[in-house]
């Protein structure tokens, strides 16, 4: 399949990139690794007249452990670590900053991420294949488009019926009679990043930037997927060093797919637990992806665990609660009943895996 025609731009800095985006008013897109965008373009679900490469912009492909103070300006004060290197946090206030162009393989392999945020490393390592992890970026993974049986198809296939909400039409074939797109958001790193309290930095053409919790980055509907405006670009992801007075943090990333390799998740679950010396759960985060149009926190299930010593009965209860609280999108790749049951199972597996490390 050939790509549709477009003009190619390779700006040298973020502001220029944002200005080009603004100048083309919705008819331009940034390309990072291209593994999501180019497939969509080959299918003609997207056909921007302008493609803006981020590869000419320096500093977007490094992982920096830096003091939270230095985050106020965009230049990290500490010398950048080259990809995959190890590094240490110097104090409890420090953060880890990951440039949006760092590849998923570099995220998976970086010693500091393996050590401090193993659920992020595991999530990145679970994506697709070696080749796609070498190309796909963490920024692209977060800005990933939603997926649907009626959308991720060739033009010929889609031409057989009127366009749906996702392609500027006015129907949804998944939830009939609905008034929005219900496509699934299946990024593997996003649930892990939400569990880790990560923040994303967004720059615009006015040369201003903001940092927001990644949890607030998503709209909750299938189209538009995230809150990025036409002239905005995500430049970095910052993860706080979740050290909390004496408690021990443990996590697990769990991905359910129909086969082990090269597969989007049917469900993915990121679990993060804080246990004190007596093994009482002080804090819990359970984030579930791929079953709705954005990752969702199972807040009632989190509450069930807090303040208690976790045993099998409590795990079962948390799984049931999570499953009950999330209204899955039906019939996309699996039946609603299967998805509900497997949320229960996957949450249970995640909590057990997190506790396992004794």
């Amino acid at each position, binding site marked *: 399949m050939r790509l549709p025609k*477009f*003009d190619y731009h*390779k700006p040298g800095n973020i502001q220029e990139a944002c200005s080009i985006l603004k100048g083309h008013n919705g008819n331009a897109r940034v390309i990072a690794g291209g593994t999501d965008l180019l497939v969509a373009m080959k299918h003609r679900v997207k056909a921007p007249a302008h493609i803006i490469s981020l590869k000419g912009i320096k500093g977007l492909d490094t992982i920096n452990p830096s003091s939270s103070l230095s985050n106020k300006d965009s230049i990290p004060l500490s010398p950048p670590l080259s990809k995959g290197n190890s590094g240490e946090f110097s104090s409890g206030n420090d953060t880890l900053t990951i440039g949006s162009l760092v590849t998923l393989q570099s995220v998976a392999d970086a010693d500091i991420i393996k050590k401090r945020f193993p659920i992020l490393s595991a999530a990145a390592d679970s994506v*697709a*294949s070696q*080749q*796609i992890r070498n190309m796909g970026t963490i920024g692209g993974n977060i800005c990933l488009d939603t997926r649907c049986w009626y959308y991720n198809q060739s033009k010929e296939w889609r031409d057989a019926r009127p366009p749906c909400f996702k392609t500027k039409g006015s129907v949804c074939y998944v939830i009939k009679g609905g008034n929005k797109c219900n496509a699934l958001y299946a990024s593997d790193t996003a649930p892990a990043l939400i569990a880790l309290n990560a923040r994303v930095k967004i720059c615009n053409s006015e040369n201003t930037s903001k940092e927001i919790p990644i949890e607030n980055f998503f709209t909750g509907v299938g189209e538009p997927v995230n809150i990025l405006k036409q002239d905005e670009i995500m430049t970095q992801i910052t993860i706080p060093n979740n050290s909390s007075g004496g408690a021990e943090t443990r996590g697990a990333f769990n991905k359910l797919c129909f086969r082990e*390799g090269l597969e989007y998740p049917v469900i993915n679950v990121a679990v993060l637990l804080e246990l004190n010396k007596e093994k009482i759960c002080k804090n819990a985060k359970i984030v579930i992806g791929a079953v709705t149009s954005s990752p969702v926190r199972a807040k009632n299930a989190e509450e069930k665990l807090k303040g208690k010593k976790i045993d099998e009965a409590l795990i079962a209860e948390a799984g049931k609660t999570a499953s009950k609280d999330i209204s899955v999108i039906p019939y996309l790749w699996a039946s609603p009943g299967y998805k509900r049951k497997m949320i229960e199972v996957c949450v249970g597996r995640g909590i057990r895996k997190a506790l396992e490390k004794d």
Partner: protein
Amino acid sequence: MKKIINLKVNGDIYELAIEPWRTLLEVLRENLGFTGTKKSCGLGTCGACTVIINGSPVLACLTLAFEVEGIDILTIEGISQKGSLHPIQESFIKHGAIQCGHCTPGMIMSAKGLLDKNPHPNKDEIKKALAGNFCRCTGYKKIVEAVEAVSEGK
């Protein structure tokens, strides 16, 4: 809207006038005649188009040629040296890891990416590294054995 770019393939530099929407795979096969890199799905799901860029296996069908200007690109044609096959190629022949041969260049480039990074992988690591390469003849067992043999120096 053609633009002149320089591509560095297997150590040689080629000056080409191409349009921005051409993929590296199209340019390798159609402009430069490197037809060893295969095309199948064009959508990232089969790995037939795997080439090594800056030491890492990537998919040529999802790479814009413009994006890899001046960067080291290695294709299956570039891994044999002075007329003798690369040890991974030898091993594929020896173990009968080739049926129709369509997936073979991609398999070998993925295997090379793995072995360059991790010279002694175990079976699971080999399977994981080859997970993005689809063999339509389904000869995976022999392919994994061929890669295992190279890592063991056999």
